[in-house]
C-alpha cells in the first residue's frame, strides 16, 4: 500500500511540475499584459490542483500556502482585484515560493520561509477591499464564505457585479451564526478503493475543516458472501460549520472517482426563511427560494462540468434576482471541457521509451544486415524496401514520443528577462518564435543552462544602455530574439540581440592579456568572435552579478558540445550579435563519420569534424621524434596517429592516409590520421558502461550494418590526452 501511495504521490509531484510550468507561463503572460479570463483561470486551476493534491497527501505547508495564493488568484479571477503590475509581481514572488514549497514537499529542500510572501498576499487581499471602496468586503471573505470562488467567478464571467453588492447588503445575516451549517452527504464510488480514491483520506480532510460525522449509512453493505472487500459501500453524512467556504469543502472532493455521489447543502434553519440569505452563496440556496430547497446532487462525472453547472445555476439565480435576461454562455464554461479532452495523454516511464528506442535502433541495424546479405536482385524486391520504410517510420515515431516542444525551455526566459531589466536598468523586449519545435526531452533538459547564459550575456553585454542606444541612433529599448527551428536532423536555437555587437578590438586585447592568444596571432573576425567562448575569458569591464565572471560562454560551449552540438557566433558591430546553438534532435543517435584507423573502424562525431585533407608530400612535418604537425594554409595543426591514440600499429605512409581535422573545445584543432573514410551515417550510441565501464577516449560504441562493432571516439578526451599520452595496454595485437 505504501508503495502504491508513493507511486501516486510521484504522479502528484509530476503534476505539480506541470502545474508550476502552466502557472508560470500564465503569470508571465499576465505580466506581459495578457490579463484575459482564460489566462487567469489557467493559473488559478494550476495552483488549485496543486493545493488539492497537496491536501490529499498531507503536505500541510504547501496546502496552506497554495490556499492563500489561490485566494488571491480567485479574487483576481473574479475581477475584485485588478491584476496590476504590482499584484502580478506579488503573484510571481508567490509562485517562486510555491515552487520552493513543492520542492520541500518532495523532500528536496527545507521548508521555505513564506512569511513575507504570505503577508504580501494578505496585503493584496485586504487592499482589494479598500480599492473597491467597500472596506466591509475583506472581513466578509473569511467568516462568511461569501466570496467563495465559484460564485465570484461566475459573477465576473456573467458580468453580475450586482450580486457582489447585494452580498455586502446581506453581510450580517450570512456571517452571523451557526445558521445554515453545511450538511454533506458523501457516497464514494464502489470502485473508489480500486481507483485509489480512499474515502478515509477525504473524510479526514473534511474533518480538518471542522466536519463531524453525523451518520454512516451501512444499509448498502451486502451480505458477507456478496461482499467484495475492494468495494466501498458506506455513505457518510457529515456536518460542517457554516463559516467554511463551500469551495473548500468541494476541494476535498477534487480527486474522487467520477461516479461518487456528493451532496453539499445548507441545513435549513429559521433564518433561511429570509429568501436572500443564501442567495449569493450557492446554487441550491438560490433555487430554494423558488422551488423549495433542491439540493445539488449531481453525479460527478466531471468535476469541472459540475462546477459549470453550479456556475450556470448561480447565473440563473442571479438572473432571476436581478431580473436580467439570461446570460450568454460563459467562455470559461465552454473552454474547460475542451481542455480536458485535449489532454488525452498517458504517462510513460522515460526508461521504457529509451528501451523502445534501443530496440528500434536494433531493428534498423538488422534491416541493413539483412539487406547486405541478400543478393542485389533480392534487395530490389518490394518487401525489403517496404520493411526498411516501416522500420524507419517506427523509428521516427518512437523518437517523436520523446520529443517535446522547446517551449518548455523557452518558458523561463521572459521572466528572467524581466528580472534582468530591473537589474540592468535596460528596457528589453523579447520576441520568440518556433516555440513549438519539437526536440528530444533529454536535449530540452540540458539546454536550459546554456540558454540562460546566452540570454544573460545578450542582456548584459550585448544590449547597450538606453542612453548609448539613443546616442547611436537606435530605439531606446533593446530587443532580444529567441528562436528555434529544425533543419534536417539538427535544431537551431538562436539568441539574437540588436545591441552593440562584439567589440573585436577589445576581445582581442583581452585574449592577449589573458594569455589565450599570442600578441602577434593573426585571427579572422570569426575567430575573434569565437574567443569569447574560450575558458577564462570575460570582457565585462566591471564584473556584474549577471554575467561577466568569465565562466559563462565557455560553459555554454562545453555544455552544448557535450550534447553533440556546437555554438556559432555572428556579430555585426553596432547592429548586434547572434548566438546559434546547433543541436542534435536526439541524444541516442549521433551523426558520425566512419573511418578506419589501423584497419579498425571508428566513428568520429561529425560535429567535431572541420575538414579532411589528403596530405601532400612534406605537408606533415615532425617537430620531435614523437610529434608531428600538418601545415594547414600556414597554420600548424598537431597531428595524431592511431599509434599515438590507441597504440594501434600503423605503418602506412602519411601520404597514403587522410588527415581529418577535428576541433575540440579548449584544445583547438588536431589532425587525426586515418586510413580511409568509409561512410557517413547516423549511428545508435551504445554506452560501454552498461556491461563494462567507461573507457577514456571512447564515447561509446555502435553496431554497424554488418553487425560488427565500431567504437565512437571521444574527441575531447583524445585531444586532451595528447599532453599526457595514453599508456596503451592490451592492444599489442
Amino acid at each position, binding site marked *: 500500500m505504501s508503495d502504491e501511495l508513493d507511486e501516486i504521490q510521484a504522479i502528484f509531484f509530476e503534476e505539480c511540475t506541470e502545474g508550476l510550468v502552466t502557472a508560470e507561463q500564465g503569470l508571465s503572460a499576465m505580466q506581459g499584459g495578457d490579463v484575459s479570463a482564460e489566462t487567469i483561470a489557467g493559473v488559478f486551476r494550476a495552483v488549485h490542483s496543486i493545493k488539492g493534491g497537496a491536501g490529499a497527501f498531507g503536505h500541510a505547508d504547501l496546502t496552506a500556502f497554495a490556499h492563500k495564493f489561490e485566494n488571491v488568484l480567485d479574487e483576481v479571477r473574479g475581477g475584485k482585484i485588478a491584476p496590476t503590475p504590482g499584484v502580478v509581481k506579488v503573484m510571481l514572488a508567490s509562485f517562486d515560493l510555491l515552487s520552493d514549497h513543492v520542492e520541500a514537499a518532495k523532500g528536496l529542500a527545507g521548508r521555505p520561509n513564506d512569511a513575507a510572501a504570505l503577508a504580501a498576499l494578505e496585503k493584496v487581499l485586504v487592499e482589494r477591499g479598500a480599492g473597491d471602496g467597500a472596506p466591509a468586503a475583506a472581513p466578509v471573505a473569511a467568516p462568511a464564505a461569501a466570496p467563495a470562488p465559484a460564485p465570484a467567478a461566475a459573477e465576473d464571467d456573467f458580468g453580475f457585479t450586482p450580486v457582489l453588492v447585494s452580498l455586502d447588503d446581506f453581510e450580517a445575516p450570512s456571517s452571523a451564526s451557526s445558521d445554515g451549517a453545511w450538511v454533506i452527504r458523501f457516497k464514494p464510488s464502489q470502485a473508489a478503493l480500486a481507483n485509489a480514491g480512499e474515502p478515509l483520506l477525504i473524510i479526514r480532510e473534511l474533518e480538518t475543516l471542522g466536519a463531524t460525522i453525523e451518520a454512516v449509512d451501512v444499509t448498502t453493505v451486502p451480505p458477507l458472501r456478496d461482499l467484495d472487500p475492494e468495494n466501498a459501500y458506506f455513505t457518510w453524512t457529515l456536518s460542517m460549520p457554516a463559516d467554511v467556504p463551500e469551495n473548500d469543502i468541494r476541494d476535498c472532493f477534487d480527486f474522487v472517482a467520477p461516479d461518487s455521489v456528493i451532496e453539499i447543502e445548507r441545513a435549513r434553519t429559521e433564518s433561511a426563511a429570509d429568501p436572500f440569505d443564501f442567495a449569493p452563496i450557492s446554487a441550491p440556496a438560490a433555487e430554494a427560494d423558488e422551488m423549495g430547497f433542491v439540493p445539488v446532487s449531481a453525479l460527478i462525472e466531471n468535476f469541472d462540468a459540475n462546477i459549470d453547472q453550479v456556475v450556470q445555476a448561480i447565473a440563473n439565480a442571479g438572473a432571476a434576482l436581478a431580473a436580467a435576461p439570461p446570460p450568454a454562455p460563459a467562455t470559461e464554461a465552454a473552454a474547460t471541457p475542451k481542455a480536458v479532452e485535449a489532454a488525452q495523454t498517458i504517462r510513460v516511464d522515460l526508461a521504457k521509451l529509451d528501451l523502445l528506442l534501443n530496440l528500434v535502433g536494433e531493428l534498423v541495424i538488422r534491416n541493413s544486415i539483412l539487406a547486405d546479405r541478400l543478393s542485389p536482385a533480392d534487395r530490389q524486391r518490394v518487401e525489403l524496401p517496404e520493411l526498411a520504410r516501416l522500420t524507419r517510420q517506427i523509428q521516427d515515431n518512437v523518437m517523436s514520443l520523446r520529443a517535446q516542444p522547446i517551449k518548455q525551455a523557452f518558458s523561463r526566459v521572459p521572466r528572467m528577462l524581466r528580472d534582468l531589466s530591473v537589474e540592468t536598468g535596460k528596457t528589453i523586449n523579447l520576441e520568440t518564435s518556433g516555440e513549438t519545435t519539437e526536440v528530444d526531452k533529454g536535449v530540452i533538459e540540458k539546454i536550459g543552462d546554456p540558454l540562460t547564459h546566452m540570454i544573460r550575456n545578450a542582456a548584459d553585454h550585448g544590449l547597450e544602455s538606453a542612453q548609448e542606444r539613443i546616442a547611436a541612433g537606435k530605439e531606446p529599448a533593446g530587443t532580444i530574439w529567441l528562436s528555434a527551428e529544425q533543419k534536417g536532423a539538427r535544431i537551431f536555437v538562436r539568441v539574437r540581440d540588436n545591441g552593440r555587437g562584439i567589440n573585436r578590438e577589445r576581445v582581442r586585447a583581452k585574449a592577449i592579456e589573458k594569455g589565450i592568444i599570442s600578441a602577434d596571432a593573426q585571427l579572422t573576425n570569426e575567430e575573434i568572435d569565437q574567443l569569447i567562448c574560450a575558458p577564462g575569458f570575460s570582457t565585462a569591464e566591471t564584473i556584474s552579478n549577471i554575467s561577466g565572471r568569465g565562466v559563462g560562454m565557455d560553459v555554454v560551449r562545453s555544455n552544448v558540445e557535450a550534447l553533440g552540438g556546437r555554438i556559432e557566433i555572428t556579430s555585426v558591430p553596432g547592429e548586434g550579435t547572434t548566438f546559434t546553438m546547433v543541436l542534435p534532435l536526439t541524444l541516442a543517435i549521433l551523426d558520425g563519420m566512419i573511418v578506419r584507423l589501423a584497419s579498425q573502424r571508428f566513428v568520429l562525431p561529425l560535429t567535431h569534424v572541420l575538414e579532411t585533407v589528403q596530405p601532400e608530400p612534406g605537408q606533415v612535418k615532425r617537430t620531435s621524434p614523437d610529434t608531428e604537425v600538418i601545415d594547414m594554409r600556414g597554420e600548424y595543426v598537431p597531428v595524431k596517429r592511431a599509434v599515438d591514440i590507441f597504440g*594501434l600499429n600503423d605503418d602506412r605512409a602519411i601520404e597514403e592516409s587522410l588527415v581529418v581535422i577535428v576541433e575540440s573545445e579548449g584544445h583547438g584543432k588536431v589532425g587525426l590520421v586515418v586510413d580511409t573514410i568509409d561512410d557517413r551515417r547516423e549511428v545508435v550510441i551504445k554506452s560501454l558502461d*552498461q556491461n563494462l565501464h567507461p573507457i577514456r577516449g571512447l564515447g561509446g560504441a555502435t553496431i554497424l550494418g554488418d553487425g560488427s562493432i565500431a567504437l565512437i571516439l571521444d574527441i575531447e578526451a583524445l585531444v586532451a590526452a595528447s599532453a599526457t599520452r595514453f599508456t596503451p595496454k592490451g592492444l599489442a*595485437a
Partner: protein
Amino acid sequence: MNTETTNTDCKIVTFILGHQTFGIDMTALIEIREWENPTPLPNVPGFIKGVTNLRGNVIPVVGLAERLGWEPSAIHARSCILVVNILGKQAGFLVDEVNDIVAINRSEIQPAPEVETIESSVIDGLVRITTRAKDGTRDENGTMVLLLDLDALSLTKHLDLAA
C-alpha cells in the same frame, strides 16, 4: 564450504581452459556462442579481448585463462564464448571447449587450497564429477572441476582500477 546450504543440488556448466576443467553455476549462463573476433578496445587490461555485439548489447569479451593467470588460450575450431551474467552485467568468456552440464550436490564441494592462482578467491571450490568417456562408458575416476566464483572475478572493478 557453507554447511547450511549443503543439500541443494545445483547444475554447473563445465568447460576446459588449457588442461583444466572449470565449472560455473548454470544460472549465470546466458548463452554459448561461437568464437568470433571481438572489436579490440584501447586502454583496457590485456585479458579484455574487446567487445562484441550480443543482440544489440555491447558486451566485453574476456580471455578467461589470462584473467585466471594461465597461459592465454589459443583460438581453435572448438573455441567458444560463454556469455554470463555477473551482478547484472553481461560478459563473454573465451574458453577452449565447453563440455557438459552436470548436476552436483553442494555438499560434495571441497574448499580450494590457498594460493591456487594469483587470487585464489576466484575459485569457489573443487568438485569431483564422473564424466562420460568417448565410448559412452563411465569414467569411474572422475574429473576434478574448479568451480569459479564469478562475482569474485570482479571484472569491472578490476577494470576500473586499470583504467
